[in-house]
């Protein structure tokens, strides 16, 4: 057999010869050749099941034509297929007549009507009339199967898409076919809702109107919707989405299938938090602190708000100013702010991360990996946060690689994570000791050590707990660099466009294009004219300096340090001490409420530009609706402030800004505006070049636990008190109220029964909390989620310490 025969199979479809891959299903081969076979149950990202029989076609493999489901038949050499034969047509009519026996004809009141595969295919392939005159099956009309998803069983055609997704893709088999025969129905277990982080996907893939999402039900009709393709910026995965609006209001996001990123899936947080954009609580005009009553903010006009902001910046001077935040911004906005800070204000005190990420050095300097690299690697080593909670779609991709592919997942961390069910090995170590555990593993005769040394390795590196500093992550990175030099890295940073912000220089010591402040490109030096020589302060240092009275004006660029910085006490003290706080935001967050000048910015869906995901992939964000009130894009605010400070950023549009980025940022050279505006950005333009020679800081050692206290571990949850979640009515109640979780043996030792209120003492504060026994927590540690409504771990954390220990006492 020649090589070509091994690689390709030729099949005749409707008289035309097409090439197909061995093992490929007939329906997929036909799709690629542009022959559409109708289907309900088949989905290219899930395994075929042959449930609906809609894809029956005439297949002749030498024994004469016969009807076979094309989603279940692998192609074979010389196969002759007819998708338009009389038999096929009769089969299609028969199947549709069957499916419509019980399907209610309530299309006029059904959310799916107008975009419904059953409706469309009935029109295209159906018999036109039904012989069924009996009573249809009846069920209670929509029942909520979770807080977000409603199920109308009458409309269900039992295609197995939602149940397959829940089991195969999400790994949460909480919905199942129950009963049998005519009474088969999809249901959850009584009182155990379909509370998957990915439940919204089942609504999107449902081929009828059986599953509907609470935030979209009865909001719009499909033919009223306007749609733009864009990129989700809820976390830094950069999932491709279709943003849909009706009457200038965002009503729905749909996942778009992108091979390199999300495979069409979205997490529920990203899918449904558009509600926040439509919120009545949005900031729509500038505010200033009332001179007569310090407790309230008054509405003002842009002119005076900008003038007083400029005055506060000028008065402070370049040394006594700090700019925190910028991960919410598009790349273009981030660039404008980076240029404003360096060339107009003259400061390098600028940081997009809030002390809960990784040093920029690591993100920009470590050998990079892509998500696809991770899903094809022999081993993915996760040393960082619980990906299911922080980068949910990365979790989904890795789960898929582990369960369907040959990739092995190894995780090292102090707490049980969502990766554990599909991991080859979950190594539990003390908080801050991951490097030690990895070193022990690599120097043992464990076969896993050989697997890591000999095979390809992608490391997903991040902060496994906000209660520990970045030092343990640095220690892990430098160990892997020396022991596993072939390993590549994916930084597990979670905020929207944090990678883009770092690339644009919103971090001390670095300039746009992944260059050091000491080594600007010639073009950048020429365009910017003034660049600070000294490396500035990061967020933690800025807040410490502010608390010590060394910062006069603090600019919060979409940042809420009181909620998001690990150390609430330090953030509160800093904001208290600073003379002027200028906040640029969408909502009145707890930090914005303390600000002296508040400038309202446009939100997601109201601005266009580009965003960069964790792997450095640039994709487009598009404007869909008109911004409310007098909100402005962040770059406009930067140019306005620059002008009032006697400077000129010479930026007049987002396109303008991108042209300048392409010129001055060495890593982005060649990524022209034409490329950005072309279809290339649908998949994303991967930019991995960096000119940074890695110079890892020396990490501080993790102190040994004293045996009296419990080491505090604080990770984030998908549902937390994040601004967009709390301003989305459908999502805000999904976050659990916080409780301190401790191993039952530790509680027994302390004589504290589970569920009681205890006094929790840390170096920062003493407060009462409910303690719950949980044997998934390691002994000697205490787990308290970060930023949950009604109490966050940040009150207990000292951001300057490597790790944080707490003590608990009975009241």
């Amino acid at each position: 057999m020649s090589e070509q025969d091994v690689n390709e199979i030729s099949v005749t479809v409707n008289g035309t010869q097409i090439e197909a891959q061995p093992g490929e299903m007939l329906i997929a081969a036909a799709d690629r050749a542009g022959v559409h076979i109708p289907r309900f149950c088949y989905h290219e990202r899930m395994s075929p099941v042959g449930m609906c029989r809609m894809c029956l076609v005439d297949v002749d493999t030498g024994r004469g034509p016969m009807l076979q489901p094309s989603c279940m038949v692998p192609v074979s050499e010389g196969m002759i297929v007819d998708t338009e034969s009389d038999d096929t047509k009769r089969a299609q009519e028969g199947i549709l007549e069957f499916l419509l026996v019980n399907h209610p004809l309530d299309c006029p009141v059904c959310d799916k009507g107008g975009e419904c595969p059953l409706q469309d295919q009935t029109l295209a392939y159906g018999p036109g009339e039904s012989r069924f005159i009996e009573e249809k099956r009846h069920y209670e009309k929509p029942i909520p199967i979770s807080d977000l998803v409603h199920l109308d069983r009458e409309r269900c055609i039992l295609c197995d898409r939602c149940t397959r997704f829940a089991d195969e893709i999400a790994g949460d088999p909480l919905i199942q076919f129950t009963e049998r025969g005519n009474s088969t129905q999809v249901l959850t277990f009584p009182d155990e809702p379909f509370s998957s982080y990915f439940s919204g996907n089942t609504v999107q893939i449902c081929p009828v109107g059986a599953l509907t999402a609470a935030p979209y039900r009865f909001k719009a009709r499909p033919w009223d919707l306007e749609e733009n393709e864009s990129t989700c910026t809820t976390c830094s995965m950069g999932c491709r989405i279709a943003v849909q609006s009706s009457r200038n209001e965002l009503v729905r996001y749909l996942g778009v299938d992108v091979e390199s990123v999300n495979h069409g899936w979205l997490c529920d947080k990203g899918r449904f938090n558009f509600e926040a954009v439509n919120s009545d609580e949005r900031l729509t005009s500038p505010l200033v602190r009332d001179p007569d009553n310090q407790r309230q903010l008054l509405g003002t006009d842009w002119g005076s708000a900008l003038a007083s902001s400029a005055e506060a910046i000028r008065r402070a001077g370049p040394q006594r100013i700090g700019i925190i935040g910028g991960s919410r911004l598009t790349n273009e906005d981030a660039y404008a702010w980076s240029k404003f800070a360096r060339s107009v204000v003259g400061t390098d005190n600028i940081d997009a991360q809030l002390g809960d990420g990784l040093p920029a050095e690591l993100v920009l300097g470590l050998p990079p990996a892509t998500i696809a690299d991770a899903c094809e690697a022999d081993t993915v080593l996760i040393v960082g946060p619980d990906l299911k909670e922080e980068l949910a779609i990365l979790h989904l991709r890795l789960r898929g690689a582990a369960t369907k592919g040959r990739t092995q997942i190894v995780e090292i961390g102090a707490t049980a994570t969502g990766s554990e069910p599909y991991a080859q090995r979950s190594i539990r170590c003390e908080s801050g000791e991951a490097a030690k555990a990895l070193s022990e593993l690599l120097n043992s005769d464990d076969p896993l050590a050989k697997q890591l040394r000999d095979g390809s390795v992608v490391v997903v590196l991040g902060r496994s707990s906000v209660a520990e500093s970045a030092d343990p992550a640095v220690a892990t990175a430098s160990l892997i660099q020396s022991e596993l030099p072939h390993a590549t890295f994916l930084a597990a940073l979670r905020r929207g466009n944090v990678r883009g912000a770092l690339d644009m220089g919103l971090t001390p010591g670095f300039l746009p294009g992944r260059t050091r402040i000491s080594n600007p490109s010639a073009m950048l030096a020429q365009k910017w004219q003034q660049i600070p020589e000294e490396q500035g302060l990061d967020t933690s240092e800025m807040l410490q300096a502010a608390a010590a009275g060394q910062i006069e004006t603090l600019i919060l660029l979409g940042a809420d340090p009181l909620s998001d910085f690990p150390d609430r006490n330090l953030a509160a003290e800093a904001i208290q001490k600073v003379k002027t706080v200028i906040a640029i935001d969408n909502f009145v967050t707890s930090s914005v409420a303390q600000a002296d000048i508040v400038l309202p910015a446009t939100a997601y869906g109201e601005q266009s530009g580009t965003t960069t995901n964790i792997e450095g992939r640039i994709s487009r964000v598009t404007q869909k609706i008109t911004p409310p009130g007098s909100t402005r894009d962040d770059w406009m605010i930067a140019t306005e402030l620059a002008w009032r400070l006697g400077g000129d950023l010479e930026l007049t549009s987002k396109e303008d800004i991108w042209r300048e980025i392409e010129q001055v940022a060495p890593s982005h050279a060649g990524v022209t505006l034409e490329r950005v505006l072309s279809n290339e950005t649908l998949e994303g333009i991967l930019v991995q070049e960096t000119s940074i020679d890695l110079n890892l800081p020396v990490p501080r050692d993790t102190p040994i636990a004293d045996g009296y206290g419990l080491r505090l571990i604080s990770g984030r949850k998908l549902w937390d008190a994040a601004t967009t979640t709390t301003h989305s009515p459908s999502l805000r109640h999904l976050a659990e109220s916080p409780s301190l979780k401790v191993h039952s043996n530790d509680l027994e030792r302390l004589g504290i029964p589970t569920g009681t209120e205890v006094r929790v003492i840390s170096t920062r504060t003493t407060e009462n909390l409910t303690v719950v026994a949980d044997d998934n927590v390691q002994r000697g540690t205490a787990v308290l989620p970060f930023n949950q409504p009604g109490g966050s771990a940040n009150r207990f954390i000292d951001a300057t310490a490597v790790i944080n220990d707490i003590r608990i006492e009975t009241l």
Partner: protein
Amino acid sequence: MTFFTDDNLALAEEIIGRYPKPRSAMIPLLHLAQEQEGWVTDEAMTQIGELVGTTSAEVLGTCSFYEMFKRHPVGKYVINICTTMSCALMGAGELMEHAESRLGVRAGSTTSDGLFTLEGAECQAACTEAPCLQVNYRHQYRVTTDQFDELLDELASSDHAVPDHGVLSQIRQHIPKDRSVGAVPPEEVKAAPVWLSEDGDS
């Protein structure tokens, strides 16, 4: 979730140990749960899910597929009267009518004393013995209305050999740990089993 008694829990673990994958024990455990309670409770399904490492929803999906797993309380004796063709021709309808009036309940319900559940059933593969019925899945052949009354009296008197609903057999297989051959997952089976080879000792 604790549903199983200590004895049954030990038995459940033994049953799980017989399979290379715990999930395979789901149906035997559902039988065990039905034996303990007479029907399969939600608590039982939850605990089975925990024992075999899956969600309660998946246990419900399996359990509800089978009509003989009851998810509501049933009587001590479940009487299934065959209503399919042969039996229908030979008087199953009259028998059902008689049974309903004698028990005072409609088909599908349980008597108030909790003793009998009456059900209409599909063919029980005894067409030559029509009309037939089953009491806790034990056959009764060519049942007349008088014989039906006698049967009820007998069942109520406790002078009979029909165990309570849910009990599968009086004698249970028990494999002590040291006699277990050890379950090997199918993907780890490399060679044909010993008994397949010609000389039986390869």
